[in-house]
């Protein structure tokens, strides 16, 4: 009954202080202990509260789980659906939350068996880092190569390979070093860590016992690197790495133009209705780069030449900002009264070029309905959705060998290359350099389901990464 609550101590006051956000995902094969690792991270960082632990302990006991960690099956902490608990597998991406003094974490736990590509692509699309698990007894498997290949394709900034179950190989340095060398070899083949942004780290861990998960283990004296949580606490997040290196990009979500319909609470709070009679601003989230008052920007509307104007206001809920950067949601006012609508993009002036409606892209196919050449689909990019025709499927990636194979169709979990013709040109950019404006969804016009994740390539021939060119 007594719900335990403790009052004000200095430590708790600091626990309630602002932190920054870091998103990461976990990926692994069947049985390499991923759910256990996630459970361990949550448990040891004290993100699991007493009633959750009690529920898991009861279920563990019911099933006769006899492992260490006090007889608790840590995997049960994350397997949220009835079918998952019954089958002892993780089916769908689950999101978990925990915090340390330094950071708040959002963890996308991506199951590794069926549909691993779908789940890994989903989890990695928003992740600052991805943790890939390897079973120390098995080493680098074909599925490990597949995982790393998907992460390279999605341009995940930090890849951490956790060599798990190191306790089951007697904490052997030789075993670890051999796996580490294999991982680095695969990384080199893929180009991971070679472009100055992405990096690749290998850590020996025991998720079951907690070695090198939250604290450094004294059972791996030959390993002098950080524990997993230390790494997650200190890696730069994607927006730290990217936001000020990139040009300003701002897809317009909607036009804020209240005319007479001002918010009564704002008026009651002193907002002058006269001053806001003709208010007009373009609301959206900055996807890349930053903007400041007085910046020259171009408004990009499909089918029209770019129109250049000046930013005269950056508004956020009654505050006027001097500057703003990704991923802030703001409303921009412009000097000229252009016709600007949802689906248009506001971009830093002078960063636009002529283009056509032909798109070359890698497609991660996420639907059981296969892709065939000639299919009519919808493409959602930023805030605009247009019709598109799949003109050619030009190849399918063999994720184990990293080679393209000829094909004319893509099936669930395939990653292939295709050429699309858009009904209206979109401000698509090369995904290699633009994780937001280079990404799009492929949607089924019949039932509205998401068919694929699209990553924009340059035209064949001028692709930076020849391995993926046709």
């Amino acid at each position, binding site marked *: 009954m007594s719900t335990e609550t403790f009052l004000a101590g200095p430590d708790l006051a600091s626990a309630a202080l602002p932190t920054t956000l870091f998103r990461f995902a976990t990926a692994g094969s069947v049985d390499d202990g991923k759910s256990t690792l996630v459970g361990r991270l949550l448990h040891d960082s004290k993100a699991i509260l007493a*009633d959750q632990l009690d529920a898991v302990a009861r279920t563990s006991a019911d099933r006769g789980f006899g492992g260490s960690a006090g007889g608790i099956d840590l995997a049960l902490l994350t397997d949220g659906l009835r079918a998952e608990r019954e089958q002892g597998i993780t089916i769908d991406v689950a999101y978990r939350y925990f915090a340390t003094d330094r950071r708040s974490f959002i963890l996308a736990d991506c199951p590794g068996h069926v549909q691993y590509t779908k789940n890994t692509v989903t989890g990695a699309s928003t992740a600052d880092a991805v943790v890939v698990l390897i079973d120390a007894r098995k080493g680098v498997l074909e599925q490990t190569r597949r995982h790393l290949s998907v992460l390279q394709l999605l341009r995940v900034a930090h890849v951490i390979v956790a060599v798990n179950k190191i306790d089951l190989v007697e904490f052997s340095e030789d075993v670890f070093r051999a796996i580490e060398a294999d991982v680095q070899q695969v990384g080199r083949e893929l180009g991971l860590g070679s472009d100055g942004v992405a990096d690749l780290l290998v850590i020996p861990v025991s998720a079951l016992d907690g070695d090198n998960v939250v604290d450094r283990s004294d059972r791996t004296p030959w390993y002098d690197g950080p524990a997993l949580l230390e790494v997650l606490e200190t890696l730069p997040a994607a927006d730290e790495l990217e936001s000020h290196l990139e040009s300003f990009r701002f897809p317009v*979500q909607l036009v804020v133009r209240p005319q007479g319909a001002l918010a009564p609470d704002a008026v009651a709070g002193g907002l002058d209705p006269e001053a806001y009679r003709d208010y007009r601003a373009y609301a959206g989230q900055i996807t890349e780069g930053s903007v400041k008052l007085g910046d020259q920007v171009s408004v990009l509307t499909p089918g029209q030449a770019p129109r250049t104007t000046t930013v005269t206001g950056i508004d956020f809920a009654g505050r006027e900002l001097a500057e703003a950067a990704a991923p802030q949601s703001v409303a921009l006012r412009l000097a000229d009264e252009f016709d600007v609508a949802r689906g248009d993009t506001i971009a830093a002036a002078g960063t636009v070029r002529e283009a056509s409606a032909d798109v070359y892209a890698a497609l991660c196919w996420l639907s059981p309905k296969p892709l065939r050449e000639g299919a009519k689909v919808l493409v959602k990019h930023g805030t605009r959705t247009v019709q598109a025709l799949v003109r050619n499927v030009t190849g399918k990636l063999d994720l184990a060998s990293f080679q393209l194979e000829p094909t004319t169709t893509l099936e669930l979990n395939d990653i292939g290359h295709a050429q699309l013709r858009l009904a209206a040109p979109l401000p698509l950019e090369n995904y290699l350099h633009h994780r937001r404006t280079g*990404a799009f969804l492929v949607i089924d016009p019949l039932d509205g389901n998401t068919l694929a*994740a699209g990553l924009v390539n340059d035209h064949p021939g001028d692709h930076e990464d020849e391995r993926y060119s046709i």
Partner: protein
Amino acid sequence: MSTFLTEEPTQVTDAPVSTRLSSLDTLESEAIHIIREVVAEFEKPALLFSGGKDSVVMLHLATKAFWPGKVPFPVLHVDTGHNFPEVIEFRDRTVERLGLKLVVGSVQEFIDSGELAERADGTRNPLQTVPLLDAIQRNKFDAVFGGGRRDEDKARAKERILSLRDEFGQWDPRNQRPELWNLYNGRHTVGQHVRAFPISNWTELDVWRYIERENIELPGLYYAHEREVFARDGMWRAVGEVSQPRDHEEVITKTVRYRTVGDMSCTGAVESAAATVRDVVIEVAASTITERGATRADDRISEAAMEDRKKDGYF
């Protein structure tokens, strides 16, 4: 001729020094982006508003998303009839302050008409699904904002930010659309609707820190107050019209507060001296038990209680 963008990064020699957004700013920005996407892409959205802290935060985010304009959608309250009077008073005052339209779906009306039967245990939270789906259908809402958070429950941890519901309002957890980058797919066919959860990625502590930072008013029962209570199912239950002690249950006066606000007959209070928002932030940071485990009898029934309710159309 149309334009694409070049690949060359702009020269940003005079770029501002990078100061990372705090986690609250990042979460706020994400939520506002989602709210604006739903308003832009749907015909008739509504926001589920109970007067509970998560729905109050949602409404606050909506006012920021459309400032200086009015919030461009109505709010929907599924009224169990087992309300804390101060929460209803707060609801009505908030709706008036923001100039909103309030739509009420009433559990009591469904019981009176025989379309719902009172449960043996007397609690009405599980009965909310039918009036909710009825209100969605009658008002032709095609998107409904909810304050659900993934940290609340294991089934909710698998929920999408835009979650498609079929003609019967059902959730199919094994057949959800993948959600990639910040691109939300809200396409639906006639009869289907979408539940939108803009604060999916917030934790209970984030919500409280945000309430503190933004100085958001809540119903008073979230803060420590004296109340006549009795013990049942390991919780403190308030004495009220629909929540009467049984013979062996002793009524005592305690200093308590609520961590969630719902059906008075199944929502428990916690002993607490946290009288201010700062006290609550510190208390939540130190709590060793989840808000649902602490205060919701209906979620204690089984490990899959929430999953089963959600599949039937509950939030």
